């Protein structure tokens, strides 16, 4: 959190555009999807697993949703959420059943489903872009807007609200429901949890199901932001989201992580990117700097915490 504060201060000093309402709101709008995905991934990490297939899953949900809406002849937000949610959860369950049913480690399963989903998606859709989308889906819903002195508009859109809801729901899940606490326990000591009566299968399905739900909703909102469905628009962001969640305090071995930390992690990465952008740094440098930051972060955070006998997530 300290780092974020420092960043904000230094950036606002460095660029006069940073601390403007316009910039900040666009920052929030554009990173809404990442935050949604991040809280989903957080749950998986807490349960001791890892998932890198969610971005692809989101793409699959997008395409599938288009077909569903066409079949229904339209639709609205309610239906949209329901469809995206169900599809997302279904894909999450695929992961969970492989992990639980065949005792395969999560990274291997999600690498596999990543490729399987993506390959099949591209094959069946032939990679076509879809611009012809239902109006309700693509119309920008403005929740708040403000025109600043120099005539520029700042606005907060629907995705931000949805993000907030997702964040709060996740927070409730992991802090205030028995299932959520079981997830922590399971990530912390899976053997002990099993002996205490926690259902291992339930844990996997809840964790990956939640991730799937978030993936689907994230995909849904992405269309609202970009007004188009493009097959490989979402791929590649999974690692950034993972990095952000880990920066926010979640641990690969499970048992740790908070929603607040998670959100801050995403914001940190977003602010860094935004700042570099405003400072005129080449966009190609983003990834490099992010990667370096993560390396530094894990190095320093791990120096104080050495865990012998780590688990394979």
């Amino acid at each position: 959190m300290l780092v974020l504060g420092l960043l904000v201060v230094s950036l606002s000093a460095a660029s006069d555009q940073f601390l403007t309402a316009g910039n900040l709101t666009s920052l929030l709008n554009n990173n809404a999807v990442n935050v949604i995905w991040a809280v989903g991934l957080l749950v998986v990490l807490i349960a001791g697993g890892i998932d890198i297939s969610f971005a692809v899953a989101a793409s699959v949900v997008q395409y599938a949703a288009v077909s569903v809406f066409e079949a229904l002849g339209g639709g609205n937000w309610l239906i949209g959420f329901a469809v995206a949610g169900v599809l997302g959860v279904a894909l999450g369950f695929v992961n969970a059943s492989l992990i639980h049913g065949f005792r395969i480690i999560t990274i291997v399963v999600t690498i596999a489903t990543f490729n399987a989903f993506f390959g099949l998606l591209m094959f069946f859709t032939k990679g076509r872009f879809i611009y012809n989308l239902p109006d309700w889906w693509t119309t920008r819903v403005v929740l708040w807007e403000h025109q600043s002195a120099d005539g520029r508009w700042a606005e907060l859109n629907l995705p931000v609200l949805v993000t907030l809801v997702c964040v709060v729901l996740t927070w409730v899940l992991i802090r205030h429901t028995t299932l959520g606490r079981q997830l922590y326990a399971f990530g912390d000591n899976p053997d002990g949890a099993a002996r205490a009566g926690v259902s291992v299968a339930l844990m996997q399905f809840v964790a990956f199901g939640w991730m799937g739900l978030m993936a689907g909703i994230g995909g849904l909102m992405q269309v609202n932001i970009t007004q188009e469905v493009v097959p490989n628009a979402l791929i590649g962001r999974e690692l950034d989201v993972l990095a952000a969640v880990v920066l926010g305090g979640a641990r690969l071995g499970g048992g740790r992580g908070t929603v607040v930390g998670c959100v801050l992690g995403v914001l940190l990465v977003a602010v860094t990117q935004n700042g570099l952008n405003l400072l005129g740094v080449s966009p190609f440098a983003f990834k490099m700097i992010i990667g370096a930051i993560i390396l530094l972060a894990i190095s320093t955070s791990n120096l104080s915490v050495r865990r012998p006998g780590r688990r394979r997530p």
Partner: protein
Amino acid sequence: MEAATVAVPAVRLRHVSKVFGGVRALDDLDFEVGQGEVHCLAGENGCGKSTLIKIVTGVHTPEPGAEIELFGESVQGMTPLEARARGIAVIWQDLALFPEMSVAENIAFDTLVGARPRRVSHARLRTLAQEALASLGISIELDEPVSTLPIAKRQIVAIARALVGDARLIFMDEPTSSLTQTETDRLLEIVRRLSATGVAIVFVSHRLAEVIDVASRVTVVRDGRLVGVHDTADMTTSRLTELMTGQNFDQSIRSRDLSTATVMLEVTRLTRKGEYEDVTLRIRRGEVLGLTGLIGAGRTELAHTLFGMTRADSGGMSLDGKPVELDSNRDAMRVGIAYVSEDRLSLGLIQQQSIADNIVLPVLPRLSSPSGLLSRRRIGDTVARWVRELSIRIGRPEHAVSTLSGGNQQRVVLSKWLTTEPRLLILDCPTVGVDVGARAGVFDIVQRLADQGLAILLISDEVSEVYFNADRVLHMAGGRIVGDYLPGEITLESLESRIYA
């Protein structure tokens, strides 16, 4: 129909058998524990104690023909959840706690289990935890993660957890193995307290003296069969050992006068803040120096420094007359110091790998051919030699070490360290997890090694072990050497009383 005057036993098992793939783990066993009774379950490793516990707690189902009664009710095909619902709880040796979660959550964890998601009130968790701790007479910070607690407090948390689950019968598996004497006393106090409130406790412990002290009856199991149920009032540890192993052990003092032998290890005023202080000792060639004391006395910490894993703050160490400075355990191994650690299962051996690989691991550099590659022949020869010399019963050297019994595994550990041709061998609690019957074999090896000129530091929690097997015994307490005894000049009883004072 039960007569009103006869109290219903907490658990009664009759004709319980359990077969695992052709191995009869339990054979027509009867077992009974009264309500509020403190009972001991005694037997060697592998005798079936764990299987018995798992049957009572619903993890395993017994063979047909078994009768299980819990609190007067006959049960069939029980599941773990059901067993817990009926008030049976187990505290396994590894405690099964969640280190990252708070004390309160760990204690009240039972209320968090269940497939239906329910709202969690953290305040309620704390109240439940508070109550449980109060009934035990202990207070612990509720919001701290369990990982910050020492073992003794973690055990309290585990017991509190069983209580929140309304346990009426609690199995405790080796609860005192990592506790200091004061902590053990406190635990036994809690056990008595619980017993007074009507909660039955079944102890599984190899600390026979403790068990006889706190339990009212003991069930002895050997090779899956019931040997007998005895009152502890007239029981002695040696009689109990006899019952458990079926053998009689005659122990004689080894202690010999070696004051003329050359000094191998000399430690002068070794100090490490917070661990041990001003330690001075001498071990001669061919001598077995016993080091005993209560847990927390600093013995293992001292051993770690002697083995190069930690550095002392001040003081010196010399081997065979030459001062040594050790930066790592590799340095120690290079000068001829070997250390058999207490934790054989996860530190002493690599369980999944083969016996051969485990034995030669420390000396691979010496088993290379001129080309720099490992010589299979030399490895094979080395392994064969030690298997022969230490009479290790193995199938084939390629088999995983995990296939061996505890006693044989310990011999593998010993042979592994002996391949390094050490001049000083440090043994830290070498008989933990080794059957009483196999222990004599281990000490025979130790004596032989000493006779061959090795200097040996024998650290043990059991005073009798050092008493009978060492030439001299040092008593360490609070990080300092506080006593130096010759077994020939003091009785075991008076030595024990000084140590447990």
